[in-house]
């Protein structure tokens, strides 16, 4: 029996209830959208579970030693993640070292100095850079950047700073440095975009107070505005870092594919994403395949941590800005 007016009668019980409520379009809508929202939960949990399950062999065989071993030998069945973690981290840090000064500088210009029209036009173009697919960056890096690095930049660094370990050794054109440079170009738009927003949130009183105290434009910007926005800027840096860590195609095409740890930035290396991209479809033994999956899991965990930090920092800035 259908229920009477939904407003006055007490909620009836039982399965009949549920079907009764189902007649109500709202409930259907709620359940349908709930189901789809659940798929996100299911998929994400399923993904983590799948990665965990398909990496059982190397986890049991190597344990935490997987993270510290530099051996990657499919013949003898010894696998270690260190060269890939190293390569991933080195190229990403390099990318940040280049992109952060450049990006924060550009963000300062766009937020503080540029007239609104120029600011929005420039921002528009810079955000388009973020839309360029990774494989296109790889294409450009492989054909255009590598010869430049090999024939001009790296020899120059070797001539001037060659006494440093990081700028010594054979010059290939490929390697950590080139990968770092292309990653820098790829992370630049994120850093600019988010830092600019963080800077725009800074209340004008900060600026004006500094200027009123006799600071120059630069001093007011650098010593009053930027520190106020620093959480958001750090957030952008972490976000850029998270992206750089997971970046696959551009790095695969220029890092040189050498699964070893090298001191020199000219040397060839490998990143987690690159070796999975190269070896996954061809790994012959189960241990090999699962070690690659384990590498993927390591990368995923790394990006989770960094992303979480990034969001905390960005939220912290927004809250501060509004208080």
């Amino acid at each position, binding site marked *: 029996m259908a229920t009477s007016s939904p407003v006055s009668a007490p909620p009836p019980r039982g399965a009949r209830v549920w079907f009764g409520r189902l007649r109500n379009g709202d409930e259907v809508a709620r359940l349908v959208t709930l189901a789809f929202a659940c798929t996100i939960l299911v998929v994400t949990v399923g993904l983590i579970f799948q990665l965990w399950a398909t990496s059982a062999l190397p986890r049991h065989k190597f344990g935490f030693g997987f993270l510290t071993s530099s*051996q*990657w*030998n*499919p*013949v003898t069945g010894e696998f270690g993640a260190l060269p890939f973690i190293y390569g991933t981290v080195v190229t990403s840090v390099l990318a940040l070292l280049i992109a952060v000064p450049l990006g924060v500088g550009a963000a300062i210009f766009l937020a503080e100095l540029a007239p609104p029209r120029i600011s929005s036009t420039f921002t528009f173009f810079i955000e388009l850079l973020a839309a360029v697919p990774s494989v296109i960056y790889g294409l450009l890096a492989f054909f255009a950047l*590598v*010869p430049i690095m*090999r024939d001009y930049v790296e020899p120059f660094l070797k001539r001037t700073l060659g006494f440093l370990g990081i700028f010594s050794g*054979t010059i*290939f*054109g*490929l390697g950590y440095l080139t990968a770092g440079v292309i990653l820098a170009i790829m992370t630049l738009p994120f850093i600019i975009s988010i830092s600019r927003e963080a800077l725009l949130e800074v209340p004008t009183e900060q600026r004006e107070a500094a200027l009123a105290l006799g600071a120059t434009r630069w001093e007011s910007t650098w010593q009053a505005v930027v520190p106020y926005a620093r959480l958001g800027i750090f957030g952008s840096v972490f976000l850029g870092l998270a992206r750089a860590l997971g970046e696959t195609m551009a790095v695969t095409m220029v890092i*040189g*594919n*050498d*699964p070893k740890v090298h001191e020199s930035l000219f040397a*060839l290396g490998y990143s987690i994403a690159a070796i999975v991209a*190269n*070896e996954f*479809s*061809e*790994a*012959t033994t189960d241990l090999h395949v699962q070690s690659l999956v384990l590498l993927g899991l390591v990368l995923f965990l790394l990006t989770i941590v960094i992303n979480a930090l990034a969001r905390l920092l960005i939220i912290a800035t927004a809250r501060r800005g509004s208080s």
Partner: protein
Amino acid sequence: MKKSSFWLGVLGALAILLMVAQAKVLINAAGATFPYPIYGKWFQEFGKIDADAQINYQSVGSGGGIRMFSEGTVDFGASDMPMTDEQIGKFKTKPFHFPTVLGGIVLTYNIPHVTQDMKFTPEALAGIYLGKITKWNDPELGKANAGVKLPDAEIVVAHRSDGSGTSFVFTDYLSKVSPEWKSKVGSSTSVQWPVGIGGKGNEGVTGIVKQTPNSIGYVELIYALQQKMPYGYLRNAAGTFLKADLESVTEAAAAAANSMPADFRVSITNQPGKKAYPIATFTYLLIPSKIDDAAKKKAITGFLHWMLTDGQKDAAGLGYAPLPKNVVTQEEKQIALIK
């Protein structure tokens, strides 16, 4: 959004989704990059002869080919390296190896200003790939190349980053000529290379050498020929320096041809013949011994027959050597064994 344009869009999307090139029998294959130039040509030509069949080949490297074949992801595989007993053990019924052509692996190089052909001794090659010989003007290289002005430049070594039969054959050769290589690195489709840049496929290594000054890499002969890149003379077991060509590669298979094992799994590197090129290899198609789908079986066996007769004529033009006659006869007998 107008309703009509919405439905038009949906129809268009469906049309694209259903876009399929006509083929009654679709056969998937994957494997070695070594023979890809000739396989590509063969599959295309065979498609014209047997219009019903279409063979799709994914050039992923011997390692990938073996794996996809073991998993059943493809109908047959291709590999320069014959499958190991362990790999064969994964099958319910032992698959067949069908040698298709003979090829030679050459050492191609890119040394600016050096126009003469280089001569490489086994010791030099092992030294370079072990990372012990690091410069082009090393005395070991100078020994065989008197009269060539070799630069004082670091050697950029190129090898394969993927699971490669070509790597297997090359490391098999190095293991035979260098005890140090054998103990330190060994031979396989995927080894722990002491030095060098990893390239994907024969194409990748060729590309690296072509674009990088002072580099050296091992590739199948046709890749160096097509790119008009220089490749060196190698000293064989008999002490002669020779280049890979039809004659020297065929000569390398001479001994094996006379006493070919029933399953065709054999290594022909560093053979004793006077004119035998030291780094030569058969390349194989890995065919299941039992094909359930009748149409696929007809297409595959048809292809194998064609390959052993008409197909062999294409080999020389693409830098491969055709199979010795008694090997062909032995293979024809094996085709009949496919259930």
